[in-house]
């Protein structure tokens, strides 16, 4: 290399560094990206519940007091009432043999008793949506579905973290079932949500379809299903619960009549609509597989409206490619957030009307 070549290289290097520095300065001066601007704005103008409180402070205080009184009364009644007043599933302890024989899947540490969810009275339910549990599906040694270089556990965690950020920006209090890549049983996830008295439970998953099934997005709430494909999916997702589908069926009979099922369906509808509308322009081949019912453990045992969103489909090559892009995962998180916010807004408006 001649001295001139060396000089040229040094000049090019200086120019490159200068160029990068300018970009770094510009990056520092850039405003936050659009979704965050919207979120901040939403907080600046106060979420629906806060706005309502501001406008109708006195009236709402009265309503709130009434609701608290009704809640307290209902809770007391629930404690004192017999099965007629509180249709709660109270399954008999799971016999180890039953779980083992009805499912070929491993059933680690089969719990001897099931913590049955408490029934919720319609009049006391809509106390507003404030605390949301976001559950990133799978984790640790449980990778969930996997494409060649993508694991469901990593995608769900990434999307859940992005969703958490948006929800917090939007004024919600958020609890994450897992804060990193570690194993957490379905039971622990449920217990965490119940112990923290969450208002909503959102479980984030990514789908996988064998064979010729059309790739798409779908949102589940608690219910029975005869669809063999859904039974297989539920079995996969319930793998670590320690319960067989037969046991769950027994539990479900007592829970289906619960008011939570209606609220979960409404929430699932909002989220599914938001997901599909938002993702369709980016993923034109995605099918709206709709709102469905299935007996996932995380939906059975949670004491609040709960949904499980299959936000994408790893078995589809194009979707797997998109999921590698942070922007696409951001897009999904935003769509989930919009769906949850729409549901919360409805709930809060219901409270404003005093119904």
């Amino acid at each position, binding site marked *: 290399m001649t001295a001139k070549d060396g000089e040229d290289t040094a000049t090019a*290097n200086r120019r*490159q*560094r*200068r*160029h*990068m*520095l*300018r*970009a*770094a*300065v510009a*990056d*520092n*001066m850039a*405003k*936050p990206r659009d979704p*965050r601007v919207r979120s901040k704005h939403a907080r600046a103008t106060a979420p629906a519940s806060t706005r309502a409180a501001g406008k109708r402070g006195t009236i709402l205080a009265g309503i709130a007091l009434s609701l608290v009184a009704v809640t307290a009364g209902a809770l007391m009644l629930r404690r004192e009432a017999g099965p007629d007043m509180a249709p709660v599933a109270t399954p008999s302890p799971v016999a180890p043999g039953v779980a083992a024989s009805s499912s070929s899947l491993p059933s680690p540490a089969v719990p001897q008793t099931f913590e049955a969810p408490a029934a919720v009275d319609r009049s006391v339910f809509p106390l507003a949506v404030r605390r949301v549990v976001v559950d990133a599906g799978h984790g640790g040694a449980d990778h969930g579905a996997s494409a060649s*270089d993508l694991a469901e556990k*990593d995608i769900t*965690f990434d999307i859940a973290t992005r969703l958490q*950020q948006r929800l*917090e*920006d939007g004024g919600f209090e958020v609890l994450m079932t897992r*804060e*990193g*890549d*570690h194993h957490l049983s379905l039971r622990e996830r449920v217990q965490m949500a119940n112990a923290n008295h969450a208002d909503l439970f959102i479980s984030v998953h990514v789908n996988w379809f064998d064979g010729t099934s059309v790739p798409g997005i779908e949102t589940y709430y608690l219910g029975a299903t005869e669809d063999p494909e859904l039974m297989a999916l539920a079995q996969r997702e319930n793998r670590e619960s320690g319960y067989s589908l037969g046991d769950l069926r027994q539990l479900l009979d007592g829970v289906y009549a619960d008011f939570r099922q209606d609220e979960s369906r409404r929430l699932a509808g909002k989220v599914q609509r938001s997901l599909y509308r938002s993702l369709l322009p980016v993923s034109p081949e995605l099918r709206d597989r709709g709102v469905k019912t299935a007996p996932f453990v995380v939906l059975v045992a949670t004491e609040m409206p709960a949904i499980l969103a299959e936000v994408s489909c790893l078995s589809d090559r194009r979707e797997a490619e998109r999921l*590698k*892009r*942070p*922007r696409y995962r951001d897009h999904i998180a935003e769509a989930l957030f919009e769906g949850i916010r729409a549901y919360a807004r409805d709930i809060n408006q219901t409270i404003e009307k005093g119904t």
Partner: protein
Amino acid sequence: MTDRQKVLNVGIDLGTSRSAISASNGQRHVVESYVGWPVDMVARKVLKRSVLIGSDAVENRTMLDLHRPLERGLVKEGSKKDLDAVRQLLNHLLELAGIDLEAKKRPSVRAVVGVPAEAMRVNKQQLRSTLEGAVDSLMIVSEPFAVAYGLDALLHSLIVDIGAGTSDFCIMRGHFPTEEDQRTLVAAGDSIDENLLKLVQEHHPEAQVSVYMVREWKEKHGFVGKPQGRVKVTVPVKGTPTEIDITDDLRSACESIVEPLVETMLDLLPRVDPEFQAKVRNNVILSGGCSLLSGLRPALQDGLDPIGGGNIQSVKDAVFAGAEGCLAIALDAEDEDWDRLVS
């Protein structure tokens, strides 16, 4: 601002586990990224300080409301304490570098602060508003970019910055990295600690261990691959100091990050333009405190075999590589740049 005599440039690496400062006056310091406030009047009386930082805070943690503000590479939004902790850390580092923040006449401080890539993505504006005021001009950059800049590895390289909260990947293509060029994993130092704690508790249920203890063991004895000898530590068992062998648990915990790190490299490298892939593969640079784990570099290098092999080097000074990179940026930035970044 234009009087060069009165300017002090500083590069600060604000990390999850440790934070470092390199200043143009030659000062270099590192502190543990812990900030704690006495929990009550008694604690305040005992400690005789309103805030404790670094190892001081860790040692006195039982009396403190202890915060590690960049847990998992992010400042928890809305957490005033965590934001206060970030500000306290910055002020402390500036003081260590010889800047009297209370003095009326002090040099104009121009700071480049490197943060985990995830914090840069999510918390940049928040960090900016938090740090503004402590310095005269402020630039925030992602940690892997700072490392690349400091090493002049801006073209055809892959920076893998393995910290405590996150592992950040950044492909350098000769331009300012975009989001597509970067990846963040939570497989990092803290995830090793969590795994190790779980394994030790599982295999030695009688032993009393804490995350602080396993973190120290990892930093002292952590390794990947074949053990050089048995690792034995002393822990209390019902109050009695007892020796336990943690070799296998330590190895399992440390190796838990290898697979995700390799997978991410194998995913990122084929995205480089085909004619430059071999160059990048042979120019992978490891930085960050957790990259110091014995045996990690060769294990990661072996992981590149499926795509034709590669060469991974570790930075010479993993503790200060980020801060030195930030300082290099600060020194290269021109007055007009700093004028735009006045805080």
